[in-house]
């Protein structure tokens, strides 16, 4: 039942659409199908006992959604939250099959690009480095390298570790 979607410009969409955003010097990407919403930064409500990358929670259309600071997650130096600071709200599939929503704080959103297979490069296996299972692959775009993130791997652990520890303590 795989259908080939024909784009407005007539090209056939075997490519995936990727939302790209900047974090420090790097450009990252997320599959656009995972992105629910992009919104400007607004102050969050801090949550007790949360790991440092979980800034707190926000009200998104009536749901309480955790907000994760990707700078902290990627161990980048923290930056001021400015008017261009953006929260990308994504949906994440949890291991138990449920879906959770989560907001990612990034420096700025850049673009939406069509990513074809030819542009993709496998992520190098870096031995000894901290877990990079959240990097799905790398890709070359116009002006450099794009790090394509695996939304599930990126966030699942955060939420499960954050709450799993508490469950163990309870």
């Amino acid at each position, binding site marked *: 039942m795989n259908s080939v979607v024909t784009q407005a410009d007539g090209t056939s969409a075997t490519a995936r659409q990727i939302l790209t955003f900047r974090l420090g010097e790097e450009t990252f990407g997320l599959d656009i199908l995972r992105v629910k919403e992009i919104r400007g930064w607004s102050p969050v*409500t801090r949550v007790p006992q949360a790991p440092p990358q979980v800034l*707190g*929670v926000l009200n998104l259309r*009536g749901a*309480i959604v955790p907000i994760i600071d990707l700078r902290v997650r990627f161990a980048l130096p923290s930056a001021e939250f400015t008017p261009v600071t953006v929260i990308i709200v994504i949906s994440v599939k949890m291991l138990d099959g449920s879906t*959770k*929503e989560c907001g990612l704080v990034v420096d700025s959103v850049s673009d939406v690009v069509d990513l074809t297979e030819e542009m993709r490069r496998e992520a190098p296996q870096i031995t000894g480095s901290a877990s990079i299972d959240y990097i799905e692959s790398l890709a070359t775009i116009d002006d450099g390298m794009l790090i394509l993130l695996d939304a599930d791997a990126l966030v699942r652990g955060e939420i499960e570790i954050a*709450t799993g520890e508490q469950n163990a303590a309870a």
Partner: protein
Amino acid sequence: MSIDLAQFHATFFEESREALDTMEAALLELDESGGDPETINTIFRVAHSIKGGAGMFGFSDIASFTHTLETLLDELRNSRVALNERISNALLQSVDVLRAMIGTVQHGHEADPERVATLHAELTALVKGAGVDTPPPPPVIAVEASTPPAAAPAPAGAAAPESTSARNQWAIRFRARQELLTRGNDPVRLFSELAGLGPLDARPDLSTMPTLEALDPEVCHIAWDLVLTSDVARETIDLIFEWAEGDCDLDVKRVVAAPAEPAAVTEATETEQAAAPEAAAPVAAEAPSAAAAKAEAPIAAPAVVAAPAAASAAAPVVKAVEGSGKPAASADSTSIRVSIEKIDELLNMVSEIVITQSMLNQLATRVDGVAGDALKSGLAQLESNVRELQESVMRVRMLPVSFVFSRFPRLVRDLSHRLGKQIRLKMTGEQTELDKTVLEKIGDPLVHLVRNSIDHGIEMPDARVEAGKPAEGTVHLNAFHKGGSITLEVSDDGKGLDKDRIREKAISRGLIDARDALTDDQINELIFLPGFSTAEATTDLSGRGVGMDVVRRNIKELGGSIELKSEKGKGTRFVINLPLTLAIVDGLSVQVGEETYIVPLVTIVESLQLKPGHSNNLVDHGEVFSFRGDYLPIIRLHEAFGVEPKARNLHEGLVMVVEGDGRRAGLFVDSLLGQQQVVIKSMESNYGRIEGIGGATILGEGAVALILDVPGLIRLAANSQPAARLIA
């Protein structure tokens, strides 16, 4: 195709479960009424519809089992077999076995095949005992062929028994379009679904059938005129064709029911007279009178006119069903099935409106003059409308307690039989309404309490007589509203708690010290401690390792409380208080540093400002203060949650005396902001559990505030101050 089949499966499972509940309740009623024909009819109909559904989906084990069950019920209905205890036990067990079988096909859980086989054999033996062999399943359809084509439709033979209570008819013209079959919409299945609603007569229109040679095997060339005799709403029919929408032409009309009745009744009467003329009389006598009343309605009259007549004719039947507390059986025409998600979505939207509303209120304070006044009065109106809307939506989630109570007659019957006790179950306030989520979660704790009463509370008949009490004990389930909460009571007139034994046991388990002087209430409290059980030998009833501590914890999780009153020789009473809904809580908003938290009002005993020097820092005991003669630990919220507070000295802020899990503590906060009702949002749906936090809510300006879980917070504080004595 796999998708919609699964959808139908789910419906079948759900409906079968409901049907089994109805059947169980009717069976229990049957026990008391000694075989009321209408009750047997109800049971028969339920078994029949399960059989139909099971057959349709190819669950042949279930179909075959229900077929035998149905045969036995038919024998009972026709008075060829007299109801006795062996039969009623077998019938009740059939309900269990069917539940298990449905569980098997649904979840792949293993039903005990031996039990199924044994019971199946028992049912067959009971039927045989009546001198009748189980007829093969096909005959039910055969009647179809003899349906007079021109006359007003007689119901299909399979459903004939149902015709005595049928009131409305639906004429459905069904014509397939090109894609119907290839999209997985098989008329056989669609019509089976329809037949599940009531007797269905299908008359094919073969006028457009091509020859075999010219026939495209993937296109349905037959059209149908269907007549469904059922009281269901139009929506229910539309729902069945939902998946075929766009793939067929459908014309649904309501028609007069009258002409169908005489034929159906004649048929039923014939069968019954052939079998046992005298015993069949009650059923037969009632049926023609219903039909006669309906026949009086002018045949050609518009449906609107005929409907009330038909409805009134059938009224006794409806009443009989309602009287026995089975809402599902007769409510088809006035209710629709809505998923709980849809209601929650609605509730979510309403909460959003509440937030927007309070935001507007804040803005309005900045508008002056005439326009401002008009705006404010408009907003006041809006506020009261929104509140009403919110309450209405909340009420949609409410169900009567009978939903949970209905399982107890069976439980009490079975347990008392097994234990050789005589027990009467009294239930009052079944119509008291409660949030569905609360209702679902309170079932197990209630079962535990009732089991406990039967197992440990009520004495054996001779012991009761010896004690000067009637041989028959009473277990009473009661429900009533009290303010904004609901109270459920489980009481018995049994032997009461043996306080000396509880005390001894608690000492032997090291739960209390032999020197501790405890009041009666404090002794009663002991049974809620983990690992405490008064049963000397664990029976398979109450002693499954689940103790009263689990009951209490479950109730606490619902934001409720449980108390116990007991008098030796007179009985025991458990009183459960529950919030009406889990969706809203009354709370006090408090400030700590820059943050706002909500403290549920029910947990607050008192708020006070300590004078300098009123607190002590006991060695190994942490910070405590004196409150009504007790020393309570102080929980500094800013420390527990890691906030930079405005007040560090106890006398600069506020201490709230809070209570949770029977323990008290002083909660130290900066200041009190105000009281408000807040809508509880789950932290777990997108994040997870946080110790000390029960949920979150959205404040007027759209910001999130966390709601405290006071018992959790007290536990948390106790763990970080292990030596602190927290029992007040």
